[in-house]
């Protein structure tokens, strides 16, 4: 296609001689319009441009995107300004100059700021770990009990409840202390009063530990004797513990999900108002793992339970296995070795005893 058909003749940066000679015969509608207006009035392009830019300060007729035409005389500007220094000039400047052999340590140019992150490579910060990956999954009753005790403790201390999840796993001694505590059913819907410790020592230790969680505090409990119960405590959280408070609910579910290693469905979260309902929602059986057919068949084959006309192989059978069962593998390899197409690998590399090397004499 001729450029004059796509671009207004005047706008084209370069028009070949053929089109230039053809141009007078084909007068474009634009040119006809231009001719129509008086010569001193602005051209249609000018008027369009000024209407687009909404003002008198429209950019000039020059195309801001494509740059200047190569045909414009004097385009090669500033000769000598950016001229490369003569060869060997740099070397004379300083004797400390060492020519680079690799690009390591050289200044990088031609990249954006965001790409710096990519150049720096992978750091430990970049590694992703799913929520609860650092906690060994616990059975549901134990997890519910621990979450209830911890959240009650945080409520007693008046701290941010959700920050329990920062702990992850406790040390063994602290875990034992937590297991020894119990949460009474909160009919008054008060989590900060339901916790019962077996003795004073346990209470002090746990309060000390949980003061360190999140923002460090030094809070102590008034009238600690009310929280100590000599009764035999149950290892389960009471099922009617209220989760009406959304803050408590969020903290409990977060910690509970972390400790069990299971995701709790949204429907269960929204519909449940007590701990028991949350536990009940998790009682549905987990999805069964799909049967690994190869393992099952391998087990059957080892017992001899497979039908005799079925041969089972754990690995995918290769062409070489078929050759061997047909008896031609020995002939193939003999001929390859005789022709020097397979050379035995040097001793020491036990993993690959044979490697391919064409054009070499066989060595045994």
């Amino acid at each position: 296609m001729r450029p004059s058909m796509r671009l207004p003749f005047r706008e084209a940066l370069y028009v070949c001689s053929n089109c230039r000679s053809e141009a007078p015969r084909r007068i474009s509608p634009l040119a006809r319009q231009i001719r129509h207006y008086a010569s001193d009035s602005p051209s249609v392009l000018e008027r369009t441009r000024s209407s687009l830019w909404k003002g008198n300060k429209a950019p000039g007729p020059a195309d801001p995107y494509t740059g200047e035409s190569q045909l414009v005389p004097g385009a090669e500007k500033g000769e000598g300004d950016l001229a490369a220094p003569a060869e060997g000039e740099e070397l004379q400047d300083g004797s400390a100059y060492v020519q680079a052999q690799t690009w390591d340590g050289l200044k990088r140019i031609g990249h954006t700021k965001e790409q710096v992150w990519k150049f720096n490579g992978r750091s430990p910060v970049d590694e992703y770990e799913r929520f609860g990956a650092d906690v060994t999954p616990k059975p549901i009753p134990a997890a519910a009990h621990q979450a209830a005790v911890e959240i009650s403790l945080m409520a007693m201390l008046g701290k941010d409840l959700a920050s329990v999840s920062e702990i992850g796993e406790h040390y063994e001694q602290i875990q034992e202390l937590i297991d020894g505590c119990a949460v009474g059913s909160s009919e008054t819907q008060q989590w900060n009063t339901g916790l019962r410790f077996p003795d004073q020592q346990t209470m002090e230790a746990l309060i000390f530990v949980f003061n360190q969680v999140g923002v460090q505090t030094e809070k102590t409990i008034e009238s600690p004797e009310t929280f100590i119960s000599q009764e035999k405590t149950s290892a389960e959280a009471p099922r009617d513990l209220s989760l009406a408070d959304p803050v408590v609910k969020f903290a409990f579910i977060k910690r509970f999900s972390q400790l069990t290693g299971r995701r709790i469905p949204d429907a269960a979260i929204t519909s449940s108002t007590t701990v028991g309902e949350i536990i009940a929602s998790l009682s549905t059986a987990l999805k069964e793992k799909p049967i690994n057919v190869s393992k099952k068949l391998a087990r059957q084959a080892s017992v001899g339970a497979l039908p005799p006309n079925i041969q089972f192989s754990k690995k995918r059978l290769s062409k070489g296995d078929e050759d061997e069962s047909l008896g031609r593998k020995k002939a193939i390899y003999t001929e390859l070795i005789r022709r020097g197409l397979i050379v035995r690998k040097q001793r020491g590399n036990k993993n690959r005893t044979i490697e391919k090397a064409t054009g070499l004499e066989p060595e045994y």
Partner: protein
Amino acid sequence: MKRLQLQRWSSTVLSPRARTGNCLHQQLYTAKLRYQSTASSIQSESAPYDAIDVLEDPKLMSQVRRVHKHKSALAYPSPPVEAATRSAKLAALHARLYLPSRLPLQTLARTLVDASADENADFNNESLATLGHDLLTYYTTEHLLCNYPRLPLTVIFAAMYAYAGPKTLAAMAKEWGVEHAAMPGGEVDPGYLQFQRVEPGTDVEANSDLQSARPYAAQKNWRKTVTSKIFYDDEFGDQIKGVVSTGSGSGSGVTAELASATFVRAVMGAIYLHAGRPAAKRFFEQHFLSRHLNISELFNFSQPARDLARLCNRENFEPPVAKIISETGRKSRHPVFVVGIFSGQDKLGEGAGASLLEARERAALAALKGWYLYSPLNVRVPSSMEEEGAAPWKPVYVDLGEVIV
């Protein structure tokens, strides 16, 4: 096994006329040197080979062995016995052929090892094939002779070949789904038929030297009477060829057709040995007699009218007379004549043709086929007497034989 040395005088005892052309005799009395020497028996008792012919070089052998899964089995010329129970192909073949359960997989694996693959007689199928071949030919012969007592000898030979000839057996092995191993060896799946292949370019026909006892056997152009074939030739009326030089080491091989035929015979022998005679007969009926063979197409008369005249003369019938039964379009381009051949009042045969002569020939042909293809009703074969509680034997019909012109 130690075999007696045959003395010189024994050749008169074992005169060519005294022996039948069965496979066992071929094995024993033709060029089988290893059975006649004590050295061969020692060899058969000794351990299997140390190396395969292809891999004489021990260094090469060790390197080739390294790439194999079944390294230890590589030292044997045929798969070890315990491999038979692991092979799915073998179990599938056993089930496909509906073989009796008393026939173990190990024996079935042995039937698949040709003598050219493993020359040790304890591991190849040669002995089983010898037994199976004799059983097959015996059952086929008695079936043909009892069911069609008047068949000419040439037709019997052709029918025998069609029922139990090597080409048929090879086709059966193919239909059974038996595949061939590329090379025999211990690492090969025992479900493959294993035999040493013939070198490319070998003339198979020229390789077999004639072992016929027929005098002047070398004279190819001399006429051989059909009757003499009973004595001198094998059960198919072909010249007895020398036993293929099996197991004589490298260079010798058998054709795939021959190896397949040997395998089928060996299966027959194995069934007979393991499951007994009834099972073998059942196998024969199910796999061999069930194959349809149109015997009437095997005839080839040169002058049927003359043969028929001689036949009527021999049987003291009235001389045959050809009469036009009907005709149409005698003067047209396509006339049809229907001619019947009558002996007195009895119509022997009828034929239609475009000319009177052609119609007469066809009528004579039909009459001759009607005579020769006579089959008695309720036939019993001699081997049925071997069953327990069999009814007393009633002699079968024996014919005078074909008309000799």
